[in-house]
């Protein structure tokens, strides 16, 4: 997928992910060992009233599903082009909010929507895409959102691709 091919405001469903208690605790023990992420008993007495996923776990699963989605699409696309290898790096993100606790057994549906294309004067071979990432619970309530940024390769000049 080249910069030129990306259609703004077209929401892409990235599929679902179910957070198990084991996965929540495993991530928490490694990267976010606050009681409400690692200890079901202590979590009951916390302000959350039970175990919840680390916000970074919720965010990392968005990336996981975004990559899986991209890999499924690009199977039909030629990966031989060296220029496309320049895509897929991000300078950061903005406005990340963990709006609702993510509890064991919850299934979230993730999505991504390109919302802005930015030309890069210093890097004419690339463009910057801003993407709204979201996750909703089974009732359709928004539980997580952020605006990601990603460098995407432009079609090489003179290419018929």
């Amino acid at each position: 997928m080249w910069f030129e091919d990306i259609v703004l405001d077209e929401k892409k469903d990235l599929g679902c992910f179910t957070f198990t208690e084991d996965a929540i605790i495993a991530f928490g023990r490694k990267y976010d060992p606050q009681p409400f992420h690692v200890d079901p008993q202590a979590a009951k007495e916390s302000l959350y009233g039970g175990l919840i996923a680390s916000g970074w776990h919720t965010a990392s699963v968005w990336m996981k599903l975004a990559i899986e989605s991209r890999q499924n699409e690009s199977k039909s696309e030629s990966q031989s082009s060296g220029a496309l290898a320049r895509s897929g790096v991000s300078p950061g993100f903005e406005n990340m909010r963990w709006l609702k606790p993510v509890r064991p057994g919850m299934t979230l549906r993730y999505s991504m929507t390109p919302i802005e294309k930015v030309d890069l004067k210093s890097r004419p071979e690339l463009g910057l895409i801003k993407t709204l990432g979201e996750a909703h619970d089974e009732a359709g309530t928004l539980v997580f959102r952020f605006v990601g940024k990603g460098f995407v390769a432009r079609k090489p000049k003179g290419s018929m691709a």
Partner: protein
Amino acid sequence: MTAPSPLLHFEDFHPGQTFVFGHYAVSREEIVEFAGEFDPQPHHLDDDAGKRSLLGGLAASGWHVCAMAMRMVVDGLIVKAANRGGVGADECRWMKPVRPGDILRVEVEVLETRASTSRSDIGFVHVACRIFNQREQVALLAMTPILARRRA
């Protein structure tokens, strides 16, 4: 009389204050393991693919860098604070690639403190969190609010 809590509360944070802590040794195995589970792009898994990418070599997923930063912040600051959980991050910039063998540390600078208008028991401490590598380069800059309990 009970002694005041030794935990850092909202009132203990002041603009300009800086907390310095952390030590995180980044291994190749961990970079590849995290990427395999959450961000399986070639430049996070393979040296040659890393060299061909914008990163110029194998580097950790940015989400992994956030997770490692969180681990250091939990161990170095949150355990000492009357913390009420996180709400997110206003901005995060991945400034330098994080590579196998890097040693990371943290500086948290308090920018602004603001009592909650809707809840009398908490306040927001807005911080800039910088993750440095052993070359004293800022690898990650995050601007984020921390929720802290107010002293009763």
